[in-house]
C-alpha cells in the first residue's frame, strides 16, 4: 500500500528577501544584505516543519515573509486557503491579505514583551476576535473562556493582567491568542527559548497536544536542536540565507548529509558527563550575508571543502527520498549524526 500523498498547506518557491544598506546624507544604497536568498520548501497539512540555524541565517526573516510582516523581494509563497483557493501571499495587496491573516497566526519568543501589560487576559486573547469583528461581546468572552481552558489556564483569571503570571503562563496566553481565530498555520518563532527548562517541557507538550487536537500545522523557528528534535516532523537547516539541508527529523539527526548540519549537531553539549570527549569544533564565524563568500557559503569553515566548493554554488538536490542537500560532496562524505 502506498502512503497517501500529503497535502501541502504552504509552498515557498525561490523566496528572496534583500535589505538595502544605505549610507551617508543622501542615503545612497551601498550594498545589500541577502537575508533570504533563494529559499524553497513546502509545509504539509498537519505537520511541523522546523527552520533551524544560527543567528543571521535567515530563519526569522523567512517566517516573517510568510506572514507578510515583510514583503519579499522575489519568489512565491503559495498558501492553500481554507476556501480551497491557492493564493500567492507574496503578491497580494494589504487588503487582499486581510482575510488570509486569520488563517496564519504567530506565537512569539518573549512572553514578557509580547503581551500588553495594561490589558487583561480577556482583552489580549479577545483582540484578534475584536479586530476581525467575530461574534458579539458575549460570544467573544465565551470563546476566550474556551481558549483559556484549552491552553490549561483557569478562565477565572481572565480579568487579571499579565504581570500576575509566570513566563510559562504568559506563553500559554500567547498561544491562546494565536488560536483565537482557528488558524490553519501557526508560526512559532523560538516559542520556548525564553523559558526555564522546567517550563519549556510544559509548553512543548501543550503545543503538540493542540496540534493533535486541532489539526494545526506548525512552522517552528528555533536554534535549539534538542527542542527541534522533540517537536518536528521535518527539519530545514539554513545557513546564510539558504536552505542547506532538508529532511525528515530522524534522517537529519541520524544521517546528516551536509557538513554544516554535522557541525551543528556536534556542537550541542550532551547532557551526560560520560560522553565528554574530543569533538568536531567549527572554526571561524558565520559569513556576513552582505558579503558572503563565493561558491558554497560554508566553504571557509568546512573541513571537507575542495576547489569546486570555492568556485561553484551548490544547489539543493534530492539525495535520498525526501532528503535534500546542497553540497557538492554530499554523495561521497560519510558524516556523523547523533544516536537516539
Amino acid at each position, binding site marked *: 500500500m502506498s502512503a497517501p500523498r500529503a497535502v501541502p498547506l504552504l509552498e515557498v518557491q525561490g523566496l528572496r528577501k534583500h535589505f538595502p544598506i544605505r549610507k551617508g546624507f543622501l542615503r545612497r544604497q551601498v550594498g545589500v544584505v541577502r537575508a533570504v536568498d533563494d529559499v524553497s520548501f513546502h509545509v504539509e497539512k498537519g505537520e511541523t516543519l522546523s527552520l533551524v540555524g544560527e543567528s543571521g541565517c535567515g530563519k526569522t526573516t523567512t517566517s516573517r515573509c510568510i506572514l507578510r510582516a515583510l514583503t519579499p523581494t522575489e519568489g512565491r509563497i503559495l498558501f492553500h486557503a481554507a476556501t480551497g483557493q491557492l493564493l500567492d501571499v507574496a503578491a497580494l495587496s494589504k487588503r487582499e491579505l486581510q482575510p488570509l491573516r486569520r488563517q496564519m497566526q504567530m506565537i512569539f519568543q518573549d512572553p514578557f514583551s509580547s503581551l500588553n501589560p495594561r490589558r487583561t487576559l480577556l482583552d489580549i486573547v479577545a483582540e484578534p476576535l475584536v479586530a476581525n469583528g467575530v461574534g458579539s461581546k458575549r460570544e467573544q468572552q465565551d470563546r476566550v473562556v474556551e481558549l483559556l481552558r484549552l491552553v490549561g489556564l483557569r478562565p477565572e483569571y481572565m480579568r487579571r493582567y499579565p504581570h500576575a503570571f509566570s*513566563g510559562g503562563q504568559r506563553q500559554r496566553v500567547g498561544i491562546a491568542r494565536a488560536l483565537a481565530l482557528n488558524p490553519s498555520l501557526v508560526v512559532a518563532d523560538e516559542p520556548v527559548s525564553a523559558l*526555564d527548562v*522546567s517550563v519549556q517541557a510544559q509548553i*512543548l507538550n501543550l503545543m503538540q497536544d493542540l496540534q493533535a487536537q486541532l489539526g494545526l500545522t506548525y512552522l517552528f523557528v528555533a536554534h535549539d536542536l534538542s527542542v527541534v528534535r*522533540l517537536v518536528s516532523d521535518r527539519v530545514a537547516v539554513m545557513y546564510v540565507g539558504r536552505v542547506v539541508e532538508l529532511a525528515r*527529523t530522524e534522517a537529519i*539527526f541520524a544521517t546528516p548529509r551536509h557538513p554544516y548540519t554535522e557541525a551543528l549537531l556536534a556542537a550541542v*553539549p550532551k547532557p551526560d558527563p560520560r560522553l565528554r570527549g574530543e569533538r568536531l569544533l567549527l572554526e571561524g564565524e558565520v559569513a556576513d550575508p552582505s558579503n558572503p563568500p563565493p561558491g558554497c557559503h560554508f566553504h571557509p569553515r568546512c573541513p571537507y571543502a575542495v576547489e569546486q566548493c570555492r568556485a561553484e554554488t551548490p544547489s539543493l538536490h534530492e539525495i535520498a527520498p525526501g532528503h535534500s542537500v546542497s553540497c557538492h560532496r554530499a554523495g561521497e562524505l560519510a558524516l556523523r549524526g547523533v544516536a*537516539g
Partner: protein
Amino acid sequence: MPRAILEVRDLRTYFFPEEGTVRAVDGAHFDVYPGRTLGIVGESGCGKSVTARSILRIVERPGRIVSGSILLRRDGNDVGVDLATLAPDGKEMRRIRGGDVALIFQEPMTSFSPVHTIGNQIVETVRLHQGVGKREARARAVEALRLVGVPSPERRVDEYAFQLSGGLRQRAMIALALSCSPRILIADEPTTALDVTTQAQILALLADLQRREGMAIILITHNLGVVAEMCDEVAVMYLGRVVEQGPVDTIFHDPKHPYTRALLRSMPSIEARVRSRLPVIEGSIPHPYNRPAGCPFYPRCPDFMPGRCDQIEPPSVSVGDGHEAACLLYAETAT
C-alpha cells in the same frame, strides 16, 4: 584533593525593597578548588547570579549580605580573608575584584564601555592591578587577546566592542578577565547569548585556558548540557538554596534531590525520541515574595510529605562521597 581556594558557608544575601524581603540567596555553601570547575545550576530566580555578585561584593542596593562567610585563600596555606567582612568599595576588595577573582558576564555587549576601545579597557585593568607602564600594558593586552584566539590582535586591540561579533566580543571579555591572571574566574552564563557553534568554541577556550593557567572556574548556567561538558563539581540551586551538590557524574547519574531528578528528566535531549513528550515539573517557580515555608520545592515535589516538607527547612545532609542533598527524604535516614 588540594585545599579549597574559596569556601562559601551559609551565605545569605537578602534584598529589602519596600514591598518586603526577598531572600535571593538563603544559605548557600560550597567549595571551589584550584584548577577545577564548579557549576552552579538552576532556573531563573534561584539565586545563582546573586551568589556570584555576593562573592565579588557587587550586590546592588537594596540588597546586602546578611550572614555567612566567603573565605578566599590566596595561596594554599594562607589563613585566608573573609570577603563578606570587607568593605565593598574598600581598597582590599578592589584589589581582589578583577585581580584575584574575575567575572565574565552573559552579554559582552553591555559589559564593555561603548566609547573606549577594547584595548583601552584591558590596559586600564592591567595598569590598575599590576602597576606596569602604558607600553607594557598594551603589549599585555595584545597578548591577552592572542591567548583567547582573537585573530590579528594588533588590529583588534584598537577596535570598539560594537565592531566585534558576539563570539569575538565574548573572547575579548575573557581576555579582559584573564589579563591579571586571576585565581578564580566566575563565568555567569558565558555562552547563553551565543550560537551553539560559538558556544562550543568558547567552552573549549575556557577549558584550555584552565588547563594552562590552573585557575578555578565557577560556571553559572541554566544549561545542563554545558554543566555536563565542563564541570567537575555541581551545586544545584532552587529559590536561593543549594538543594544538592556533588561530583558531576553523581549529579547526572545518581541524583538524590527530587528537584534535580525532575530537572534532568524534563530537559530536552538531542538523543530523545523524535516527536515525543517530555515529563514535566508541574507548576512554576514561586514568586520570590510568596516563597513557600519549609522546603522551597514542596509545592511541585512528587515526594511531598504533608506536615513535614511544608514546615521543616530541610538541612543539607551527606548522601554519598562528597554528595549532599537538602531533602527530608534523606534527613530521616540520617537521624
